[in-house]
């Protein structure tokens, strides 16, 4: 099972995402933003960070990187894609997911161990969780407020496309406290928190994030 991890200029958490894939038992393939090939991987992670310095808008320039052309095609064809933080921003800018991420409502950079409720355990990336499960995963961002119009929000809720939701006080002003969503098919998932930072006892608040990376290994095999 080969999982690609894309590095854009300014990506920060690509190394940790690659490590999480390895800990989960997958083979990591480092993908370069400037290559127009996905090198036959079975899934792709768009990592966190500050691609292109967050210039113009977060993820707005990364969205047009050469690697994104084959990625968008493959995602529309069912390839599992996970966008974490900046990766989620890139997925929204590419219209693979609806809505957008804006500046945290309280204007501060937020860095906390955040409790989340898993609401969709049927996506390619969350099959290893159960609905209603509470997990603790680091959240670190300045532009993490998920917004969308009412019709889109109602549709996401109604169709079960909210994957994870913030528990407790809303940490960034995200509408309906939405922390992560999926597309209709369940192969593309974007979330602001960082599951790759909750995969080892030594370096994370929990190992709750590991199931994102083990789930996709099973999902891709049965696809």
């Amino acid at each position, binding site marked *: 099972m080969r999982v690609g991890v894309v590095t854009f200029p300014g990506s920060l958490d690509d190394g940790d995402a690659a490590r999480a894939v390895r800990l989960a038992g997958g083979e990591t393939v480092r993908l370069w933003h400037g290559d127009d090939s996905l090198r036959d991987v079975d899934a792709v992670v768009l990592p966190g960070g500050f691609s292109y310095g967050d210039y*113009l808008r977060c993820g707005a320039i990364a969205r047009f990187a050469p690697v994104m052309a084959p990625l968008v095609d493959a995602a529309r064809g069912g390839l599992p894609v996970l966008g974490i933080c900046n990766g989620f921003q890139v997925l929204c800018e590419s219209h693979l997911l609806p809505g*957008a991420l*804006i*500046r945290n409502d309280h204007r501060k950079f937020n860095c906390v161990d955040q409790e989340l409720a898993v609401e969709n355990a049927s996506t390619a990336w969350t099959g290893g969780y159960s609905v209603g499960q509470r997990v603790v995963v680091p959240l670190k961002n300045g532009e993490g407020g998920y917004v*969308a119009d009412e019709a889109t929000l109602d549709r996401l809720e109604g169709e079960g496309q909210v994957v994870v939701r913030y528990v407790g006080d809303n940490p960034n*002003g995200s509408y309906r406290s939405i922390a992560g969503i999926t597309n209709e098919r369940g192969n593309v998932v974007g979330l602001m928190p960082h599951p790759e930072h909750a995969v080892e006892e030594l370096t994370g608040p929990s190992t709750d994030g590991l199931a994102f990376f083990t789930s996709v290994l099973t999902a891709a095999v049965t696809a």
Partner: protein
Amino acid sequence: MARVVVDVMLKPEILDPQGKAVAQALPRLGFDGISGVRQGKRFELDVEGEVTEERLAQIRSAAETLLSNPVIEDFTVHVDDPR
């Protein structure tokens, strides 16, 4: 050479935390009577040749695709008349 200006603003229903911060700072500096501030972006595009309707359409497309995110932003396009 001509200049075309694209102004990008967050849609009115989208929270603008930066604008809010500026609005809160103004009275502290003695500037009263300003009830709200919204902050946007201005892109100045240097365009070769004449600004034809075709050229404006092209720029609107660039504004929709790259300069703005239509999910959360609106834009206007106008020609900057140097005279």
